[in-house]
């Protein structure tokens, strides 16, 4: 028996054991500490095991077959470079969410609805990544979905949460159906369910194309690819905040793992147009996701929409990798895939951090609506500092980590004029523009998020009562903030540890980065492009300190506090500040008129009347109206019509049965 994958499976078993234990003890006072302590320990141990395996023997593959599941198949598990990387993401996120939960969970009103499902959810995500046959994969996938659904429904009495749970359930079942069909096609007529057999098989072009479409539906709906994203901004915010962090930061990554596993690993050679499809969907998702986020005033929903944007960014890089791989440009493909995986890691860091911050805000004020907050930087200085770090990182600003993966994606785009196909030649620069647009809009969105919620003056009494959160939550958030900075100033380390993954999937890797002088990253050649996060950070730190030193040495020290300038009006109310909606108004007007058919109408009272003027804003969720309302309408129409069938006489039923039997027999008789 090979040790590493077996150790990982023991960890998963321990998580499942914790889940069962949690059912028994969940109503006790000490249950929160017990369960989160256990998941913290197990996840941290799993993280250490897998990370040391990735560092020690990166090319090593360990597999194990257990006599579980379907009797004639067994359950296959396997740990290679790709699954090791994703297990690192899953378990690091899991450990920090548990640490956060130690503090946050104490405010939970219904711990017995959260505690049993939290370890189960972690176990499910681990199992998806470990699975090495289609049956086990689908089983774990469904287990993960159901566990997270239970967590979404934890606060089922709150408004809208049941609807969120219902839509999530429908979309998750639909996604699994697509995956089931994809694996069915990959398994072929002989029904070989192990991934090894699928890897060896050579599916035809039609089958490969259908599998790609089905994976985009199945994994894409879980990851939040437009137009399958509708459940995500409803379900992610409904869960408790540390679970939201896991769903946004980690579960979407498991979906991406599924996509990479099937498309890059199990299907052998991609067709060039698959790159076009993935690029287009990725670019669309990135821009639409962040535009939705800009219009949002609920902080957790804003974060969920921003997850959609980041998934788009990852899919753009994956699409580039596919295009390069199809055209036998392995070094460029390795660059693009590294950019995608780096962004996977980065997004798991900063999105967890931001959801933790939103959770801290929720515990301190009981409010998710940013328009009722403001000025939290005075009441919660530490939380607002780490939240600011998260905002800067996710806005792709140097010297933090988000910038590095965007930079790598741009470098990959600049490799693409050598692609021979015209479809790609036109698509890549357009998607590059969309990527740049989404980065700029993301910065705008997070200026809004931080500025409205944490800066300015308090907009409600809840803020006045807010206080800093507990040490566990702060520890989790500070760890993530440190990781954001570290990955930003030492990107070479991350890129080098991703090289086994690109080697196994593409057969090539980016040049060794840690050997570069001064820890620069140089994807192709030094005269072409290079970036040094460490030096940029050092230069900014040095010149800011120099400026501050100079000013404090030579300039005036006088400082006077006084009321802000209110244009001569005394005591301007906090309601006169910009709100989340008014902050986004210019952007809504520029982009929203096209994307959301947004319209503003001002009703002015006639001269002399004393009634107030009214501003009405009309925004349409175009995706919902185009794709989902017709489906919902069709289902309603069909059920309405079929409803008559319930009220027939027995004679008519017998006639129907008879007609059906005759038709069936006819078909059977005519079948060749």
């Amino acid at each position: 028996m090979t040790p590493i994958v077996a150790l990982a499976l023991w960890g998963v078993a321990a998580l499942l054991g914790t889940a069962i234990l949690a059912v028994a003890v969940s109503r006790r006072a000490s249950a929160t500490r017990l369960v989160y302590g256990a998941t913290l320990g197990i996840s941290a141990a799993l993280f250490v095991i897998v990370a040391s395996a990735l560092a020690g023997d990166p090319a090593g593959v360990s597999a194990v077959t257990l006599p579980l599941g379907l009797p004639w198949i067994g359950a296959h598990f396997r740990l290679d470079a790709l699954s090791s990387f994703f297990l690192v993401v899953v378990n690091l996120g899991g450990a920090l969410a548990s640490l956060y939960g130690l503090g946050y969970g104490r405010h939970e009103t219904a711990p017995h609805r959260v505690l049993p499902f939290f370890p189960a959810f972690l176990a499910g995500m681990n199992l998806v990544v470990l699975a090495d046959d289609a049956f086990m994969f689908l089983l774990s996938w469904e287990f993960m979905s159901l566990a997270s659904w239970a967590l979404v429904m934890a606060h089922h009495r709150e408004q809208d949460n049941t609807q969120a749970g219902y839509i999530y359930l429908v979309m998750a079942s639909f996604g699994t159906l697509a995956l089931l069909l994809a694996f069915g096609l990959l398994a072929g007529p002989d029904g070989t369910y192990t991934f090894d057999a699928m890897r060896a098989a050579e599916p035809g072009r039609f089958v490969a194309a259908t599998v790609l479409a089905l994976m985009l539906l199945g994994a894409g709906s879980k990851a939040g690819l437009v137009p399958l994203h509708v459940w995500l901004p409803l379900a992610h915010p409904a869960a408790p905040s540390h679970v939201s962090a896991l769903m946004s930061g980690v579960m979407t990554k498991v979906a991406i793992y599924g996509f990479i596993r099937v498309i890059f690993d199990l299907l052998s050679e991609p067709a060039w147009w698959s790159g076009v499809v993935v690029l287009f969907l990725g670019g669309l998702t990135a821009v639409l996701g962040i535009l939705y986020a800009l219009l949002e005033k609920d902080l957790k929903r804003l974060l969920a929409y921003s997850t959609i944007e980041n998934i788009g960014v990852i899919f753009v890089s994956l699409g580039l990798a596919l295009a390069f791989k199809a055209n036998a440009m392995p070094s460029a493909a390795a660059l693009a895939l590294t950019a995608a995986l780096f962004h996977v890691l980065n997004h798991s860091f900063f999105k967890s951090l931001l959801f933790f911050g939103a959770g801290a805000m929720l515990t301190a004020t009981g409010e998710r609506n940013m328009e009722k907050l403001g000025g939290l930087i005075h009441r919660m200085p530490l939380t607002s500092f780490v939240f600011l770090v998260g905002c800067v990182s996710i806005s792709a600003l140097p010297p933090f980590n988000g910038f590095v993966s965007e930079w790598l994606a741009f470098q990959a785009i600049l490799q693409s004029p050598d692609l021979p196909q015209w479809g790609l030649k036109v698509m890549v620069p357009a998607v590059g523009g969309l990527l740049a647009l989404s980065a700029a809009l993301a910065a705008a969105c997070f200026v809004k998020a931080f500025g409205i919620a944490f800066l300015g003056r308090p907009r409600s009494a809840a803020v006045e009562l807010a206080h800093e959160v507990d040490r566990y939550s702060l520890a989790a958030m500070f760890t993530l903030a440190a990781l954001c900075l570290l990955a930003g100033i030492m990107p070479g380390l991350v890129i080098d540890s991703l090289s086994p993954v690109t080697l196994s999937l593409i057969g090539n890797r980016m040049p060794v980065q840690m050997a570069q002088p001064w820890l620069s990253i140089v994807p192709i050649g030094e005269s072409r492009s290079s970036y040094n996060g460490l030096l940029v950070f050092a230069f900014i730190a040095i010149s800011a300190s120099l400026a501050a030193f100079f000013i404090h040495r030579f300039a005036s020290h006088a400082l006077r506090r006084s009321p802000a300038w209110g244009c001569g009006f005394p005591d301007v109310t906090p309601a006169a500040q910009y709100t989340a909606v008014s902050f986004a108004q210019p952007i809504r007007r520029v982009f929203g008129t096209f994307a959301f058919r947004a319209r503003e109408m001002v009703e002015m009272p006639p001269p002399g009347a004393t009634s107030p003027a009214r501003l009405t804003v009309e925004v349409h969720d175009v995706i919902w109206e185009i794709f989902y309302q017709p489906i919902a309408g069709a289902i309603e129409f069909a059920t309405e019509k079929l409803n008559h069938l319930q009220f027939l006489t027995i004679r008519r039923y017998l006639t129907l049965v008879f007609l059906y039997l005759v038709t069936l027999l006819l078909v059977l008789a005519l079948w060749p």
Partner: protein
Amino acid sequence: MALIFELTIQGAQMMLVLLLAPLLVGFVRKVKARLLRRQGPPLIQPYRDLLRLMRKEVVLADNASWLFRVTPYLIFAATWVAAALVPTFATGLKFSWTADLIAIVALLGSARFFLALAGMDVGTSFGGIGASREVMIASLAEPAMLLIVFSLALVAGATQLSTVAAFMASPDVGLRVSLGMSLIALVIVAIAENARIPVDNPATHLELTMVHEAMILEYSGRHLAMIEFAAFLKLLLYVSLISCVFIPWGLVTAAAGPQSLALGVVTYVGKLAVCGILLAVFETAIAKMRVFRAPDFLGAALMLALLGTLLLFVSRSL
């Protein structure tokens, strides 16, 4: 010895941008005033303004947070680092590989991010209006800038500014449609990013026209001095960028002797003067736009830049 020389050149460039930035602003103001038949303030007025601001006391709003006080230094530092990374008189400096053109654009993005936050910190409607308009303008200017970077990178085969500048000075460039489009787009972006007419008016505090000035309305004293200085540096950065890419003649390499380095500095100052005059003439000749006309203006830059990039994807020689 060579290392010390290289470090000296790098340091000289950092100090040079610091010294010249206020002068450029003073020069533009002077030329504008002369064009309007006014006497205009003396050339060194911006230096005097900065010194005066530093000597004044800071009046801080009651609920200003630590972020409000830290931001001026952060903005100044980020802009200074970005400005020092653009080749001014010489290419191939010691640390020129620290950040390529994409990173320079992103560094300016960092500065803008914090400036917009500082605008919202005190909680007045002015700060909010400035920040919200600034991010709207940036959401168009930044993608346009990145697409320009793409065009330049595809022409020169590098995003490294030193390499781009060296390539543009070589005879391989030729006359290209895409470069022309990039130049026009870059000028539009530079005008918008520096809050110049017709997008914004640097000389007014009228609420309906202001974007940049509204964000910094609450700043005073040494903090305001830092922010103003950062704005001067940003103007210098864009002028240096345009001149090092589109008028690259006279750039020397860092390894050249002191004589040619001095000549490089003189040429650089000459280029600044030419660009300054052009900017002043353009600003005098045109009227300020309404805020919601600015997206059309910037949209043109975005489309031109995208078209330039597309052309290069179609054929490397266009």
